[in-house]
């Protein structure tokens, strides 16, 4: 049922794009996407075969009278596996077949029989059930984190690009900053905060906020510094630190695990906001820097001068004329970020004991359940490639300046 709905939606979307961008272009892009998809899935399938390439292991397996390639099956079945079970698994997975044969039967199983295989081979727990249970969690996490990142990046990016070529507001005098910093540092020291918190809350945050309010090129530098700082904090460091600050030192965030929407909106949101914040903060600088660069370029275009000459307000020009073309770039990066997000999800879900797809992948690696990993990686690649192809083609439909032959 679900696959049918997805298929219809996909066909409708493709038809829409073909109508907008033309047959040849759409066909070319989708053929390219299909090629990449086949190579990725085949590559993952071949990589899996290396798991059983150890000669000592092969000899040991042969002495046990099972196939020398049975290593993945033996680890998946765990201790106490019977010879029959291993043989059946080898047969099922086509481990004795050549790489192409094995790949084709795997694709056949997924695409035509619509069977994703097992998540836990030993318990025969189907992967589709695990995905159904865990994917919504990761999906919500992704959605909230990206909304948060855009919510932070768009205003900051606009402000930064707008102020880059201006002088600051002199009616906010510069000497206010050192006084404010001294006051805040004293407050922090006597309030009994840790040294790192004093540096962060007393010096860095007020400096950035002060320059942001004052405007001018310094506001641009402050945002740049903020973006660089966020870009340089590894996700795991950010996650561990925020978990310590909000969940362990104080009880602002409960580490009780995910609550679905059916448990109430408040419960749901309060169970995901911290992991989403970590992922969102990690994605913010990417959008911020891109939006800023893109908007600065747009601000130098002739249409901005024309709009200004016509007497339009700065706000109107910024939001309607300059931000609009930049949203297309933002969406492109949003698509490209999917693979990056999966990386982040693995780390964040590990830190917060969040039972989503990321921690499932990590668990599968730990259990050497490579069949499940292979299928999930292939699914991620499918989502990534399809989304980006769609965005790519839509991009051309929206912006006629990009032509089909432009590969840069």
């Amino acid at each position, binding site marked *: 049922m679900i696959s049918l709905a997805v298929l219809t939606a996909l066909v409708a979307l493709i038809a829409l794009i073909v109508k907008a961008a033309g047959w040849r272009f759409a066909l070319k892009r989708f053929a390219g996407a299909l090629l990449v998809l086949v190579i*990725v899935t085949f590559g993952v399938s071949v990589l899996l075969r290396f798991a059983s390439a150890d000669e000592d292991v092969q000899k040991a397996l042969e002495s046990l009278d099972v196939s020398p390639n049975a290593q993945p099956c033996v680890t998946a079945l765990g201790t106490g596996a019977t010879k029959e079970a291993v043989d059946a698994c080898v047969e099922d997975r086509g481990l004795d077949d050549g790489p192409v044969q094995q790949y084709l039967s795997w694709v056949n199983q997924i695409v035509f029989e619509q069977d994703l295989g097992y998540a836990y081979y030993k318990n025969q727990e189907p992967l589709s059930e695990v995905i159904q249970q865990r994917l919504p969690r990761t999906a919500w996490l992704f959605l909230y984190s990206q909304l948060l990142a855009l919510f932070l990046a768009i205003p900051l990016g606009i402000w930064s690009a707008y102020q880059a070529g201006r002088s600051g507001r002199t009616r906010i005098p510069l000497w206010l900053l050192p006084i404010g910093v001294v006051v805040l540092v004293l407050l922090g020291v006597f309030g009994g905060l840790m040294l790192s918190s004093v540096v962060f809350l007393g010096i860095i945050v007020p400096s950035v906020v002060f320059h942001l309010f004052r405007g001018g090129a310094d506001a641009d530098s402050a945002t740049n510094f903020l973006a*660089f700082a966020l870009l340089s904090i590894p996700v*795991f460091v950010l996650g561990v630190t925020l978990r*310590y600050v909000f969940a362990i030192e104080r009880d602002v965030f409960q580490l009780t695990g995910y609550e679905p929407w059916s448990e109430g909106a408040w419960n749901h949101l309060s169970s995901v906001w911290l992991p989403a914040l970590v992922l969102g903060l990690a994605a913010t600088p990417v959008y911020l820097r*891109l939006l800023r660069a893109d908007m600065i370029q747009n601000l130098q275009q002739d249409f901005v001068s024309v709009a200004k000459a016509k007497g339009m307000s700065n706000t109107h020009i910024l939001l309607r004329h300059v931000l609009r073309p930049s949203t297309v770039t933002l969406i492109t990066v949003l698509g490209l970020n999917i*693979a990056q997000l999966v990386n982040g999800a*693995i780390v964040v879900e*590990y830190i917060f004991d969040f039972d989503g797809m990321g921690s499932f992948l990590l668990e599968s690696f730990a259990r050497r359940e490579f069949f499940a990993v292979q299928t999930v990686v292939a699914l991620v690649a499918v989502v990534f490639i399809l989304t980006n192809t769609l965005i790519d083609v839509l991009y051309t439909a929206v912006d006629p300046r990009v032509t089909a032959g432009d590969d*840069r």
Partner: protein
Amino acid sequence: MTNVADQIAARSGEAPAAQEDAAGGPKSQRKSPLIFKLSVIWLVFLVVVTVLGKIFGESLPLLVDPNERNADKIAAGPSWSNLMGNATFGQDILSQVVEGAWISLFVGLSVTLVGILVGGAMGLIAGYYRGKIDAMVRLVINVTLSIPALLLVIFIVTIRGQELFWVIAALSLLAIPAIARIVRASALQVADREYVKAAEVLGVKKSVILFREVLPNVLPSMLSFAFLTTGIVIVVEGTLSFLGLSVKPPTITWGKIIAEGQIKIDETPHMVIMPSLVIFLTVLSLNFVGDQLLKRYDIKEAGIG
């Protein structure tokens, strides 16, 4: 290693002069050299301390055997004899961080070297020769981009064992397409310039043009991206060892110290904060240096995935 550091240090001296040329530019450009200098100082300091720590080890002041357990100082905070405090079993964290820096820097630099050599060559040839080679390189880039990088690295390390060689090999797979993509883009730009066209018209061999015209003009951006890539690789290596998937114990890495400190973080917050701060400063410095070099050579800003 010191060679690169010398180069950066030498370049930092030119910074004010180069900035004065752009006197008409916005105010922010005049300020950046200070941060640039601080970044270079930090990087040089880190490299020097790491190398000295590797050679002289415990004979240096403040450094002790990173595995030595001191029962009197279990989970003690920072003090004058242990600048970064002590770990869960009383080990000196400063010594552990210095020891761990070796792996981080070694992995970061060797992966970047492989990435520059292989990815740079791929991108250069693809961007200049175009045609079939270009199509193939683009395919390789697109394929690797569509797999989450961390997954690929975890996959390889789990299958092939947690050894230094395989960690470097897996991370190189991540760096090669990223660098190839950027070098290809700037090689495409350079190939469009008049002097390249002029050389072609004069009948100079394509391979000669590649080395004498295209390569020198792509090299600066390649070098600045080398800094950014090193930062990214250090982060990914840290993530890997945080997840317990990098080089096996007893080898100490930054990520491993953080992972150990995180277990009882309310008792040992300094065990997380100190190595985190070192990683943060290192990556920040690499980013600043790379970005500043990029701006210096006036190459359009581009993302690296």
